């Protein structure tokens, strides 16, 4: 999901455009926080890690080449910070459970076959999978999907919200649906989608 927009945004941040910095922060802070919170139970540690991740990112944006999506690049830094945190705590990284860390999620999904509380576990897993997919999508894709399906906005209302035209929103939604389906399917397969096909 490499986006030209990522590179353009990075270039603008490197030019010290304040608005670009705000856009960078607004786009990725919440997603990184959720990424981290899925792996770290302590809110204080999560705040420190996300802060450190974003500080390291803005100091090394020159090295971002656009070979991966910016969010994936940030997640790499965040994973490293999480690993450091666990080492400082004297704990093994493998103790953290997250949906998109394949070995752990497989175990979690296997637990779906347990006779008790299977519905709730499956619902939570599905909920996280959908939200994870949205976090990995370009921000305008996930926002457009949320406006439409969660807030019940019409295409016209979404256009007004995004400051664009109706045709552009229809096109955006079409691309967003395709990206969502692909992303969801990929993640599902990566983490053991067979559990859902049963």
């Amino acid at each position, binding site marked *: 999901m490499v986006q030209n927009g990522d590179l353009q945004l990075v270039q603008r*941040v490197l*030019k*010290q*455009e*304040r*608005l670009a*910095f*705000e856009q960078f*922060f607004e786009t990725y*802070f*919440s997603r990184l*926080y*959720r990424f981290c*919170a899925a792996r770290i139970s302590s*809110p204080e540690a999560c*705040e420190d890690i*996300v*802060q450190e991740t*974003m*500080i390291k990112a*803005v*100091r090394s944006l020159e090295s971002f080449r656009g070979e991966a999506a910016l969010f994936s690049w940030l997640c790499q830094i965040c994973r490293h910070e999480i690993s450091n945190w666990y080492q400082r705590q004297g704990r093994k990284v493998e103790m953290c459970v997250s949906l998109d860390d394949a070995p752990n999620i497989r175990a979690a999904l296997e637990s779906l076959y347990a006779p008790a509380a*299977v*519905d709730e576990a*499956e*619902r939570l897993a*599905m*909920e*996280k*999978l*959908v*939200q994870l997919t*949205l*976090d990995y999508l370009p921000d305008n894709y996930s926002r457009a*999907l*949320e406006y439409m*399906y*969660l807030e019940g906005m019409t295409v016209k209302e979404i256009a007004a919200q995004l*400051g664009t035209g109706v045709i552009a929103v229809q096109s955006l939604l*079409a691309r967003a*649906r*395709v990206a*969502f*389906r*692909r992303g*969801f*399917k990929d993640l*599902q397969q990566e983490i053991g*989608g067979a559990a*859902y*096909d*049963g």
Partner: protein
Amino acid sequence: MTDRKETLRGGASAVNTNGVGADSDIRKLMVLAGRRQEPPAEVRARVHASVLNAWQQHAVHAAPAALDRGRIGLYRWPWAIAASLLLVLAGWGLLWSPAPTPVGQLAYASGGYSVLQPAEGGGPESQRYHVGDSIPIGTLAQTADDGYLKIALDQGASLRLDRSTSVTLQNNGHLWLHQGRIYVDSPDRDSQVNIVTPFASVIDVGTQFTVALIDGGVSVVVREGLVNVSLGERKTVSAKAHNGMGEMLHVDDKQRVKREPITTTDLRWNWIHQANTDFDLNASSLYEFLRWACREEGLELHFASQAVELAAKQTRLHGRITGMAPREAIQAVLATTQFVSQSGLAHQLVVSFKR
């Protein structure tokens, strides 16, 4: 298997990768998953401040390195010329770039202040704004130790900055308070103002209030209505005003909360008059003037009868009240009319005909 589980399995397995067909699969999944959780506002504020600082520091330190790289030999002249041309073109590009979204208008300023949009493209000059200018998202407004500002937000509320105050304006009535004290007059219940500080996030519910960073924490003082103060972790406390009695709520850096009553006419509100334009009496009715003055002073306005109220609406005013506090102006203006204020409760102004 339950219906819900069948829906889950159906929803997941129905997702196809060819991107065609109805969208009911996505709708089902998204409704099932619900809204993505947002991090607490105060965490966002703290992280934002730290990352912004790091970014600005990095920019400052990166600049000398860039200059060093600029000490190039003559053989690099063609590249330097090309780079210059690119910069010129980039400048033209900036000229043609769409204007940032406006969030309000600078309505009043006195003393030392700066209202600016940090420069685009890393240039040394910032875009500065003056009284009457429309100001865009991302604007940083600051007052010196003798300065006051008033900003009319497009979503309906107004904002006043006390001396030595600094805020960044975001969109939809969202703003960061970096230091100092602000007063918010937000009469419309449908358009909320959200003030984010390092200690708490303050959201109004149609009200007048101040927010100040003071004594290692944040103080919220409510003069009218209700405000919710979010302390994170789904913990919210409220402060409200009723019958002339407001409330001051102080949250320290350990998120301990202290409350103290404060009258709506307390002298501690008086600084807000320094950050406002004088009321223009000309072409206004007495009724409009009294409504303005009472709102400024935290008074409830009452008329002795409907006839008095109607007469006040029909009474046109002329003249000036420059330099007067609203309470002084009330007496000065009433003295020139057929109306008088009756003695009553401290937080009320009751207007009747002169006998």
